[in-house]
């Protein structure tokens, strides 16, 4: 469909380029000029000259109109191609104005997005525009409704200076890492946050130090040597820094040091993979970004990006549904839950999902998943319905139990 549109547009452009409109205007000018010249030369024949040229001028003017008709029909054809392309596609709209009322939160999310994407100057422009708008609204009229007033107060939720500083720091570290192959700022950061990272089970500090060790070995510019690698610099680094990493990485560190014994034939050694990992820098950057954001309580990828992309995947289904529901004049049965399943890529699933196998309802705070002594799980409401206060048989195994034996679980 799209290539049809492209073809039709090509035709339109060709037509427009071939248009003689302006040429014909020039023709009119030329004709008038030659009439003028002729009359200037032979003033007594002015009437004849003028009469003679009247109809050529008119036909040039008509030709201008003709060329416009061409343009008109070209545009019409292209327009038809568009109608075909978007046939039965209503303009998207939403039933929920929940977001409209929360414009200040949308703005905050945008500001955060710009900051985490490293677009600091756009973010600064945007933030000052928000602040300015708030100032004029406060200064000008008093807000009309209490809701607006509440929104104004909430604008203070724009990313704090602290968050902005944090993102600036993150970008500095990433820039050094990616552009200058300088791991030191990242290592410093990971040391400062060692406890929090360890609590998360993160290996970031070790990964950074390992890459530094490998990088020093490969970096001949430090101290030119005849060796295939700069093992002296690498060993020096290992002596100074590795001990600090603690017993957790003992085995890994021994492997790294052991590799040096294979010089000059490191390539043929079992350690070749460690020293020739072309995506090592990319991996380390990603894991750094993820950890940095996590410690701030933020997701590694821009949530706004993920949500907008998920939205693009979900919209066709939701719009279709809207059309069907409008035709049938029905409404969703549950306002809390979307009426259809939207298949998203696996990377877009962040939580475990529990759907009660008995009631087919998703678990919520009000209706949490309950585990029976046999290990099977059903939703609390189903459990109540099944047990009616008595001993009852698990729907999935012969085990019998009592309502009070079941335990709430957290996914």
């Amino acid at each position: 469909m799209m290539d049809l549109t492209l073809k039709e547009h090509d035709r339109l452009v060709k037509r427009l380029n071939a248009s003689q409109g302006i040429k014909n205007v020039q023709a009119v000018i030329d004709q008038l000029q030659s009439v003028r010249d002729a009359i200037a030369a032979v003033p007594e024949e002015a009437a004849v000259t003028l009469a003679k040229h009247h109809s050529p001028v008119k036909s040039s003017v008509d030709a201008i109109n003709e060329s416009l008709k061409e343009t008109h029909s070209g545009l019409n054809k292209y327009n038809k191609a568009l109608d075909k392309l978007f046939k039965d596609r209503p303009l998207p709209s939403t039933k929920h104005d929940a977001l409209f009322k929360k414009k200040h939160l949308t703005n905050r999310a945008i500001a955060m997005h710009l900051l985490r994407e490293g677009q600091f100057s756009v973010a600064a422009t945007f933030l000052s525009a928000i602040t300015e708008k708030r100032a004029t609204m406060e200064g000008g009229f008093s807000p009309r409704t209490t809701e607006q007033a509440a929104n104004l107060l909430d604008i203070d939720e724009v990313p704090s200076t602290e968050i902005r500083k944090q993102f600036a720091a993150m970008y500095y570290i990433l820039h050094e890492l990616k552009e200058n192959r300088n791991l030191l700022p990242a290592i410093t950061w990971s040391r400062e946050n060692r406890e929090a990272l360890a609590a998360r089970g993160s290996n970031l500090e070790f990964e950074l130090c390992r890459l530094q060790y490998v990088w020093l070995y490969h970096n001949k510019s430090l101290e030119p040597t005849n060796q295939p690698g700069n093992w002296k610099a690498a060993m020096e680094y290992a002596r100074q820094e590795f001990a600090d990493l603690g017993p957790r990485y003992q085995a890994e560190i021994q492997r790294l040091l052991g590799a040096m014994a294979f010089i000059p034939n490191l390539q043929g050694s079992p350690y070749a993979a460690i020293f020739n990992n072309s995506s090592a820098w990319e991996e380390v950057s990603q894991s750094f970004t993820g950890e940095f954001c996590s410690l701030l309580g933020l997701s590694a990828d821009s949530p706004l990006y993920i949500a907008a992309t998920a939205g693009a995947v979900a919209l066709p289904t939701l719009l279709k549904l809207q059309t069907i529901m409008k035709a049938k004049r029905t409404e969703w049965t549950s306002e809390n839950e979307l009426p259809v399943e939207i298949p998203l890529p696996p990377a877009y699933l962040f939580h475990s999902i529990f759907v009660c196998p008995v009631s087919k309802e998703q678990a919520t705070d009000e209706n949490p998943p309950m585990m029976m002594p046999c290990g099977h799980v059903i939703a609390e409401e189903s459990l109540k319905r099944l047990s009616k206060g008595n001993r009852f048989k698990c729907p999935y195994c012969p085990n019998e139990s009592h309502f009070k034996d079941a335990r709430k679980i957290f996914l």
Partner: protein
Amino acid sequence: MTAPDKPPETGKLTRRPRGKQDQPLLRVPNELARRNLKATQRLVEREKDYLLPALKDATNAAIAKTKTPDQTLADLDAMIARMKGFKQKMENLKEEETKIQTQTRKRIEHLEALNHIPSLADVKYEQWSRVRLDRLLVDHMLRSGFVESAEALAKENGIEDLVDLDVFKQCQRIFESLRKGETKSALQWCAENKAALKKSELNLEFELRLQQYIELVRSPDPEKKIEAIAYARKWLVSTQSEQNKDILRAAGMLVLTQDTKVEPYKTLFSDERWEFLAHLFLKTHHDLLSLPVEPLLNIALSAGLSALKTPLCHSAYASSSTNSASTATSVCPICSTELNELARDLPYAHHSKSYVAGDAIVLPNGRVYSKAKLMDISRQAGLAENGKVKDPTTGEIFDEDEMKKVYIM
């Protein structure tokens, strides 16, 4: 438990992404091209109506010898000068046309690129989708009146051809002028779009004229009232009979003062009417360009936030599956502070099946994790050697044999 690692069963993930929601992207420049043609047609018509009679008059005058040859030459010079001006105007319109079509071409190519992306999981799709987000952000900024930010973002990310900066700038200017109580630029816009507005059901022009009339009536000066009657004759009565009721009301205003408590006159005299006019203009303007009145970002977000949202995202209890204190995987975007409040009132996604790691175990405190991942975390914490495991959410330490298999169907 970290994010569940087995993908859901769906063959649809390989389906090709489509850009059909991007209707405004092509509709807007198409509408601009049509306007450009209309403007050209008007110009040509005007110049034709000038030139041909002027030429005829000059010929007749020359035949009747009522003008000297010198006078005829002066007439011709005037015609030539005017035609040169005409050509310049034609060139400007042509230039505009070329700009619109170059932009259209880039937009078609942008949408067409989607056809070459095999699946949603492709890296190219991510790049494409980032451009789309930038477009939505610019659209949102423009609609909020943050023109400078919109321009900065469009420029920095090189998507100027994919967004309608000029259209929104003009729209914003007229919108603001109405809110300030000025009808001039809005009426001028109506004149420029006369043909298209005939099909509009919103009667923007009538409402604007009515406002002008109201402003005349408002004045205590009796002269102004007379002026108001003349204005009404000229601009209100001449329009269609559909607005009869409004015209009668307008007439009724003549005998009232602006502090009246009587409806509907109170509303008609109210300053709020400017706000109404501004929004009526916005709606009319967007309708004409096939632009949704809502920001495109809101449309995408309300669908996307819901598709991602789970009952766990606003639960009173910390989710074991993803939270900032626990695992090495990413925080859920809905749980992330940027979007959490925004998503609060939206419905959550529908799922027909549970979706939990295959090796799920439960700890004595009721928390469910993937066994392999829990062991991993415990090993790194140096606990595994002593037969202990650590709950990454609560920090509690348990004996390894306190883990219990849980069956989730």
